[in-house]
């Protein structure tokens, strides 16, 4: 084969300063992703007692990231497996989808047994939501998505990027620091029939406030009347109460009531598989044939975004969920994570009450899941970062997973300091 000789034509070799068409002059700098900004600010802070409560990632008692036992064992198990085998990747995908669907809807419900679901592995929760948003735009081009106010900020970006109009419905009641149920019901009622709603099935992000079972039943019933489509973003199954079935109870209420549900599942936080981008998108269908068709469309849409999902995470997740022993280990570990978070909530509340603060800190232990949403003002959030080196997202959301017995007292004092003048 010939070697390439660079044919030199000096008059063509423009240097960068010599008037080459500059295409990207109009490209402005994007605003930093708030979470990444927090992490960067934290990393560059030299203060020894600094605390990072920004990222919703579990940390152990020493404040270190945790690789779960079940994951380590699964890694060993798949070590040396030929993942290129044209059989293993599709088989692992199918196992993953089936196990995910059983996990969230229940093992023995008819919709699972009769395979009336269209399920595909997805790039974690973000990827699953985006896949659904693209599907929604493709097949329901006139529809909008209703997001709770507030919600994970990326939800807005996801649907906007998929060119689906975004609306919000009332969720958080700032004075009560609880659920604004009446306004929520009103919004659901007033939305046009057949609207698409995104719901957090447990451990609402960022508020940690979940409806009660009765409230879920009412919402489900109203959804039926209005023929709304319930889309659940399940990111914390097991991490909210420690019990995977209990955490899925809202979805199961809807399922029993006959809704054909859509569900995005993420295992990044509950299994510590952050970097692998493993999750699942499932849509319940009227029958098996429809499920096959809908699945083919999901795969087609995914094919033009990333081709196929990354195999390593798929094999890990399907190994863990598909193996009874590994799955039991996971159940125990996720319960332990949830318990530690719950005990940190209790300690924090205790410490805050001990500071002599006049405010009511009940909501710390009432809120569920990884996040504490104290309803701080931007100034208070700023003070916490600048004066006390405690970092969180700009909306004041704090990840309790970053709280340890060694920093809880410091944190309580810091929060007391910025809130006591109120």
């Amino acid at each position, binding site marked *: 084969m010939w070697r390439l000789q660079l044919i030199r034509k000096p008059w063509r070799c423009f240097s960068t300063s010599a008037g080459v068409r500059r295409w990207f002059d109009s490209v402005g700098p994007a605003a930093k992703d708030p979470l990444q900004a927090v992490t960067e600010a934290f990393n560059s802070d030299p203060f020894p007692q600094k605390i990072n409560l920004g990222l919703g990632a579990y940390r152990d008692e020493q404040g270190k990231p945790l690789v779960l036992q079940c994951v380590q064992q699964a890694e060993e198990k798949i070590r040396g497996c030929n993942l290129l085998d044209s059989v293993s990747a599709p088989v692992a995908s199918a196992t993953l989808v089936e196990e995910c669907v059983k996990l969230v809807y229940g093992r023995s419900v008819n919709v699972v047994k009769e395979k009336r679901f269209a399920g595909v592995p997805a790039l*974690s929760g973000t990827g699953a939501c985006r896949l659904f948003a693209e599907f929604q735009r493709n097949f329901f081009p006139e529809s909008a998505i209703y997001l709770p106010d507030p919600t994970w900020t990326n939800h807005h970006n996801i649907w906007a990027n998929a060119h689906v109009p975004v609306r919000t419905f009332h969720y958080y009641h700032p004075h009560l620091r609880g659920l604004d149920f009446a306004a929520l019901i009103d919004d659901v*009622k007033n939305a046009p029939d057949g609207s698409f709603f995104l719901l957090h099935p447990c451990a609402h992000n960022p508020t940690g406030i979940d409806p009660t079972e009765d409230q879920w039943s009412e919402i489900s019933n109203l959804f039926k*009347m209005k023929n709304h489509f319930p889309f659940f973003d399940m990111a914390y199954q097991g991490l909210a109460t420690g019990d995977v079935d209990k955490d899925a109870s809202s979805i199961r209420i809807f399922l029993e009531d006959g809704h054909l549900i859509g569900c995005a599942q993420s295992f990044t936080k509950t299994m510590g598989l952050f*970097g*692998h981008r493993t999750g699942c998108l499932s849509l319940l269908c009227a029958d098996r044939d429809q499920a096959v068709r809908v699945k*083919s469309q999901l795969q087609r849409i995914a*094919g033009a975004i990333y081709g196929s999902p*990354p195999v390593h995470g798929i094999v890990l997740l399907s190994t863990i969920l598909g193996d009874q022993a590994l799955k039991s280990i996971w159940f125990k570990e996720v319960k332990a994570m949830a318990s530690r978070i719950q005990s940190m909530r209790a300690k924090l509340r205790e410490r805050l009450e001990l500071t002599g603060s006049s405010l009511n800190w009940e909501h710390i232990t009432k809120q569920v899941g990884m996040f504490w949403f104290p309803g701080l003002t931007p100034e208070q959030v700023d003070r916490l970062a600048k004066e006390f080196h405690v970092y969180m997202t700009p909306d004041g959301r704090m990840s309790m997973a970053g709280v340890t017995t060694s920093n809880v007292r410091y944190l309580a004092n810091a929060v007391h300091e910025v809130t006591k003048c109120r």
Partner: protein
Amino acid sequence: WLAQQATHHRLRTNRLSPPFHSSLLLYSSHLPTQAAENSSSSIAISPITVESRHFSPSHSQPSSKGFPRYQLQPPSCIPSSVKSDFFPSSLCFQMASSVISAAASASPSACPVTDLLKGKAKLGSGNVGSLFIKDKGNPFLNSKSCGRITMAVAVNVSRFEAITMAPPDPILGVSEAFKADNDEKKLNLGVGAYRTEELQPYVLDVVKKAENLMLERGENKEYLPIEGLAAFNKATAELLFGADSPVISEQRVATIQGLSGTGSLRLAAVLIERYFPGAKVLISSPTWGNHKNIFNDARVPWSEYRYYDPKTVGLDFEGMIEDIKAAPEGSFVLLHGCAHNPTGIDPTPEQWEKIADVIQEKNHIPFFDVAYQGFASGSLDQDAASVRLFAARGMEIFVAQSYSKNLGLYSERIGAINVVCSSSDTAARVKSQLKRIARPMYSNPPIHGARIVANVVGDPALFGEWKAEMEMMAGRIKGVRQKLYDSLTSKDKSGKDWSFILKQIGMFSFTGLNKNQSDNMTNKWHVYMTKDGRISLAGLNLAKCEYLADAIIDSYHNVS
């Protein structure tokens, strides 16, 4: 009447709460054949059957009595002239379900169902809401108009009814047909994945070593930043442009990790749609099938430039230049860096220079898809020559990379999008915008493949081994090309020039066979390939070259 029917079977509850839940299947017992006259003001029901299934959490089986069926006959109150001829079944569903829901929610005496049936209460009006007023148990509907009543009872009619099956992937179809074939002579030349001489998938040794290293280190699984693994991004840009390239030293490249070639192309497509609205992408005819899907879904318009010349089984260079020249100024020109897919036909270095000339003349933006660096010729640098030629001219360029083939990491989805800019400041801004596109797509990219690449490229010993393995893979393909060519020329006495097999490069070869001839390859010779005449040499071994030669000669000469 309907309400009575319904309530007798315990449908009366405004909230179908556990343990009882009923799902009603409603279907027309016959299809309507003609429009009814006079149908505007009255509502008729064709005979429909209601099937009720009882579910409860504790019973996963339907009730032991089976599914009770109700035959709903048009009540006698409806004039017979209206009732039976035609009623769209979809409206039947709505009608029936609405009525059932009305029945379900109201006590029988409060339910003037016959009014509904006589058309006094039209669907879609607030009148129907009056059916609910008296029922205390239903707090969500009051005397104000509640709007349209739609299916308040869960029915198994999903909103996905109209969704059809997506078109099957043509290449997957080939593999499936191959699997189903029991003939022992069968040969799968559809697959675009490297196979060994034994026709097995191949995990590179360096990949196994890198994975072992990673396991031993016990690295955590934390999120990567949105732009991906820094070590990977650095390595991939240097690999592509050359570590001593000014674009690297001047920090003029915005690189972010993407999900293999597909994911990287999609990021670029979204950037194009956002910042170059209306700009077209010119793609070669033919090109990799997924290019069109990616640009379609990203809403980026595209058109084709001539590329493959069936007469010569080579490059239609004049046509290519003409079409690039004719495109509106500021178009994006999608170029395959090396080993064009599906033809295997690459421009010569002189031709690349001319292509660069015309692109600069027209102020187009070159957009390279580099999926085979190192895999085409066996040399990483040689395969990057086209990209480096353009970069050396100071042009602003898009380059998508994939490590699927050259590191065998197909299913790990590792690649990158690189944007060469006029300044480092611009590169920083472009990078920030690419991150903003990635975040709502998948938040951050998968870690495993990135770590493998970073480990292989970052370790001199592993890097050297990788280069050797790539040479081996490329060498095997060159070997089968040679053997195939030799077999063809020795067996075919017609004097046809088969040298295009040697001139083409990479995994694929366009044989010049048309659809009928390709079908003959499959049907008669059990050689599986795509209908455009493309064969994947990665699926061929030396042992089968003669057989393949026979098949090609037969198909070419004896089939039209």
